[in-house]
């Protein structure tokens, strides 16, 4: 099994695993961070340390980090919470067609609650330009939600180019950075984003753990979406899962140390993979020409059918589309928004590399893909006719 699905999820970094163990193992720290006693206090200290670690990677203050159960919840909290809080100001939201489902489905839900949503179509390279966003604003616009890095193509949006213009107009800016943190430098001191979603399990932290950055100056306000004990400054109730939080903190700490090494290493392997895949004619890199993160390569293969392509590669754990909408059997809405027809969108593979990916794996993956695509093309009457 060659695991090239790190954009779906990653294994724990060994340091993350070790850090979590202390809060899981028999005899470890197991108190409820909300408890007043010594056991609780020890847990609380670990939680606050992790908060500082997460904040540091993105140039935020610890007090601006709200723990959640993952980026899905962060996206929901940011978008619904901001809409609920600010809807008297206006009810128009701007987002893009290539956002993650956690953003798109949330926006669709808000449409049933009186929101008007503009879904921008990116260019063929996957980029949504700042100008495009600014042109879509109306006096009613309260919120723009745009992802920093796309989970299927790895395309990096120009968040830094857009944020100041939105700040100037006092329009709230939410950024889904689930695929960006630890992969592109993020400095929220310099980039006036108001809300930013994070996930641990995309960068070697635990699944089921995330955070939302909520800016304090100027203060972004949210209506809470999970009501209860009033944890997290009232923004998100629920017992804090110490081990998960500690894992996320450790993952973000490691990510800060490895950001440029990862970038260099994954970029080199990604380039090698593409070079080898180029042995095949008629392949198309999705997001070609756009700035992209180092670890993701998404390629469409003309003349083969998607399901057979995937079935031909049982030893390759890659992905077609996002794991988050996999299992639905639909071809990727992201690739279709970039103008790929249904067949090509369906005959696409996302290779997402990770820290443990080796050159041998890349070479083996390339060999398997090239071989299987050739085999299916030889079988295909469409390919024969187009030849």
């Amino acid at each position, binding site marked *: 099994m060659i695991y090239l699905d790190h954009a779906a999820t990653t294994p724990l970094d060994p340091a993350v695993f070790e850090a979590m163990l202390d809060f899981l193992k028999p005899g470890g720290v197991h108190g409820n961070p909300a408890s007043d006693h010594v056991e609780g206090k020890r847990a609380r200290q670990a939680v606050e340390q992790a908060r500082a670690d997460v904040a540091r990677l993105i140039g935020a203050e610890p007090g601006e980090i709200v723990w959640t159960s993952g980026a899905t919840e962060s996206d929901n909290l940011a978008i619904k919470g901001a809409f609920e809080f600010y809807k008297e100001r206006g009810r128009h939201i701007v987002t893009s067609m290539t956002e993650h489902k956690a953003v798109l489905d949330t926006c669709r839900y808000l449409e049933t609650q009186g929101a008007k949503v503009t879904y921008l179509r990116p260019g063929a390279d996957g980029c949504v330009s700042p100008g495009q966003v600014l042109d879509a604003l109306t006096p009613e616009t309260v919120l723009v939600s745009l992802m920093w890095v796309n989970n299927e193509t790895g395309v990096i949006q120009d968040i830094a180019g857009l944020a100041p213009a939105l700040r100037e107009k006092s329009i709230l800016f939410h950024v889904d950075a689930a695929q960006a943190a630890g992969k592109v430098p993020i400095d929220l001191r310099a980039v006036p984003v108001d809300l930013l979603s994070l996930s641990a399990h995309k960068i070697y932290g635990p699944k089921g753990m995330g955070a939302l950055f909520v800016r304090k100056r100027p203060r972004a306000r949210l209506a809470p979406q999970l009501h209860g004990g009033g944890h997290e400054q009232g923004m998100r109730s629920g017992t804090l899962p110490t081990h998960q939080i500690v894992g996320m903190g450790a993952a973000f700490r490691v990510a800060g140390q490895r950001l440029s090494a990862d970038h260099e290493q994954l970029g080199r392997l990604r380039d090698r993979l593409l070079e080898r895949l180029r042995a095949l004619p008629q392949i198309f890199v999705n997001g070609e020409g756009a700035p992209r993160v180092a670890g993701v390569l998404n390629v469409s293969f003309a*003349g*083969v*059918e998607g*399901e*057979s392509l*995937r*079935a031909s590669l*049982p*030893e390759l754990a890659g992905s077609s589309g996002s794991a988050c909408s996999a299992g639905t059997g639909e071809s990727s809405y992201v690739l279709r928004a970039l103008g790929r027809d*249904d*067949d090509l969108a369906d005959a696409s593979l996302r290779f997402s590399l990770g820290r443990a990916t080796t050159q041998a794996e890349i070479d083996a993956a390339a060999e398997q893909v090239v071989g299987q695509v050739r*085999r299916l093309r*030889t*079988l*295909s*009457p*469409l*390919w*024969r006719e187009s030849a």
Partner: protein
Amino acid sequence: MGPNPFGYSEPVWRLFTELPRAGTLEGSRVLRGTAATPANRNRLELWLRMSGERIEDARFQAYGCPATIAVGGWVCEQAIGSTLAELALIRGKDIRQALEIPEDRLHCALLGEDAIKSLAPTS
């Protein structure tokens, strides 16, 4: 035959991974049949070479899911040694049963029946 992690039926998986009889045929005594689902999302082509009444060789090409591809191989395997009249008796539901294709993929099996029905001399 490698691992079958996606839960295809055993006959579909065998035919998909082994691809018996993939290819085309040329020459006289060759019949060709084609079938497609709407918008060409799945396609099946059959080539049969006759020897008198009997089918002496059979090949297929296919574009589509593993079940579609398996149908092509299976029809070819059935075809060899039989007559066209015998082959024409094969119905989509027979194919579906033989290959254990799930109900919601009946259209793949029907491609086999349609391709057989459309068989015609190539020259």
